[in-house]
């Protein structure tokens, strides 16, 4: 994994590993001071470099803790689907907070990270000063569902041109095609070649077996399609939002192709949070529109740290 960081704008102040449940997770700390921002992992197709455009900027102003989610980067890649339940990701986050001596943090999640960010904010309020959710994919509390989620998950097709999306065989047997497809969905903005290259690199840092393990967690593997999984996740997560007491920011790109706009609206509404729509941004505004995103997140941090 020599190309893990590329040529970074800033190097971590400290880095280390924390082991929990037999799985080792690698974390990094940038900068110092108050408060601490905890940038959470997203789906294991990416690792902590998904936040590459935040580290230098926020490290200059605050203390930043970031870590590779299990399944990618420099963290372990367990084979057992049960290891990829959202609760496991939330427990990893608590272990990283403990290992880095962080009593409380402002948590920031992207896409699938919605789940563990909500678990932390709702069930561990003493550790979360405020929570920011970017492109909250798993808060799928209402119709309509995106096209990519409607592909039958367990059916093998001769070609996936007409059924690109979450499909066991598309991912398992045509991983490079799935990677290309998913990155196009993530980055609908023009001039995204560099962002797509980074996204592709991270997806190739893990394996299709790991990606399938994250989708085959207990209770999900037999469902018909990703839409069914999303609906189940949305229903479970919605029960948590009533417990959230901290300030919440929800950021959604206006060009989103992965998370539906209504989900971001619902998450802001259900948590009493603020919703900001970034024009000209897709699913990953932190990567593709870093200046706009960083200024917005910094305003939120200032507002909640007063």
């Amino acid at each position: 994994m020599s190309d893990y960081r590329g040529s970074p704008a800033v190097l971590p102040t400290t880095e280390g590993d924390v082991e929990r449940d037999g799985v080792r997770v690698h974390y990094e700390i940038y900068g110092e001071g108050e408060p601490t921002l905890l940038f959470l992992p997203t789906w294991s197709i990416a690792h902590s470099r998904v936040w590459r455009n935040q580290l230098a900027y926020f490290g200059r102003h605050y203390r930043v803790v970031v870590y590779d989610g299990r399944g990618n980067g420099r963290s372990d890649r367990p084979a057992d689907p049960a290891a990829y339940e959202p609760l496991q990701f939330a427990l990893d986050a608590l272990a990283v907070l403990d290992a880095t001596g962080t009593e409380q943090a402002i948590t920031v999640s992207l896409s699938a990270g919605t789940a563990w960010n909500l678990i932390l904010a709702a069930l561990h309020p003493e550790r979360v000063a405020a929570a920011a959710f970017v492109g909250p994919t798993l808060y799928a509390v209402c119709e309509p569902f995106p096209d990519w989620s409607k592909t039958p998950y367990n059916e093998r097709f001769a070609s996936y041109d007409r059924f690109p999306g979450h499909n066991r065989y598309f991912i398992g047997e045509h991983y490079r095609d799935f990677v290309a497809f998913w990155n196009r969905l993530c980055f609908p903005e023009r001039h995204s070649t560099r962002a797509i290259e980074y996204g592709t690199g991270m997806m190739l840092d893990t394996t299709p077996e790991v990606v399938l393990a994250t989708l085959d967690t207990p209770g999900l593997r037999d469902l018909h399609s990703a839409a069914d999984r999303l609906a189940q996740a949305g229903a479970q997560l919605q029960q948590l939002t009533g417990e959230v007491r901290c300030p919440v920011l929800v950021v959604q790109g206006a060009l989103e192709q992965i998370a539906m706009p209504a989900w971001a609206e619902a998450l802001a509404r259900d948590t009493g949070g603020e919703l900001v729509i970034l024009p000209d941004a897709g699913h990953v505004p932190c990567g593709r529109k870093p200046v706009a995103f960083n200024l917005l997140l910094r305003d939120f941090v200032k507002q909640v740290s007063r």
Partner: protein
Amino acid sequence: MIELAPEPTRAHYPDQEGYAEHGDGVRVFYEVHGDGDATICLLPPWPLMTSRSWRSQVPYLCRHFRVITVDPRGNGRSDRPREPRAYSRAAHVADVLAVLDATATDRAMLASISPRAALALALAVEHPERVQAVAFITPQLWRIGEFVRPFTAGRRERYDGYDKFNPSYWKRDYEGFVWWFASRAFPHPHSTRQLEHLYEEAFQTDPETLIVATIGFDMYEREEALALAATIRSPVLVTQNGGDAFWPKDTSGPLAEASGGRLHVFEGLGPVVGARWPVAMNLVLREFFASAAEAA
């Protein structure tokens, strides 16, 4: 819900804009950015491009200097005369002087790109009282075989590579020419934005205009150019892209030597450093212009 304002399409909008002319009935459009003590005039490029080809320099430089840009005859918001003689070097010199007059600019520091080095040289030697410094970016001063041979080769059945630098081909397949030129100007990954900008500029004009503009602009002979360069009294910077050749590189070294100017080579970057690696270009330009302004 907060709706943020849409992204501005320009990083800096002009503080002043207008048209200048000098009696031949052709209006050229100019913009003034910033209000620094010293003025930089970013000279008009070959009219495949417009003054917007300086887009990555203007917002930075105008924080430190007053910056004037000029659309070339034949593109942008300037007029598009259809006779070659309207595109003479002398007509371009007069355009720039008219813009300096219209903006009440006694003296300016100049930057030229590629063949418009001949315009910068003419201004510096013919009007030294108006020129405080000259930066020649990837200069060409005399006609270059790679471009002259295909340009004068007449009509062909097919046009491969440099053959496309040919007026008959431009008329037959202008987009094919623009694509060939753009893909050589920006051969690196992650250049989609630069390619798009070049397209936007190239399609504001048409092949007929580009042909008369290319025929009409008189370049120097090599010996004449170098002899004139030796007479420049103001500070001179010559920059040359590194990397693979597309723009010929045989001018920068002799020009720097003849003028006693500084040669800066962007190792490994190019061909179009200012658009694709603007930070590298801007730091070099700022350092040069700041020292030239201080010396004056």
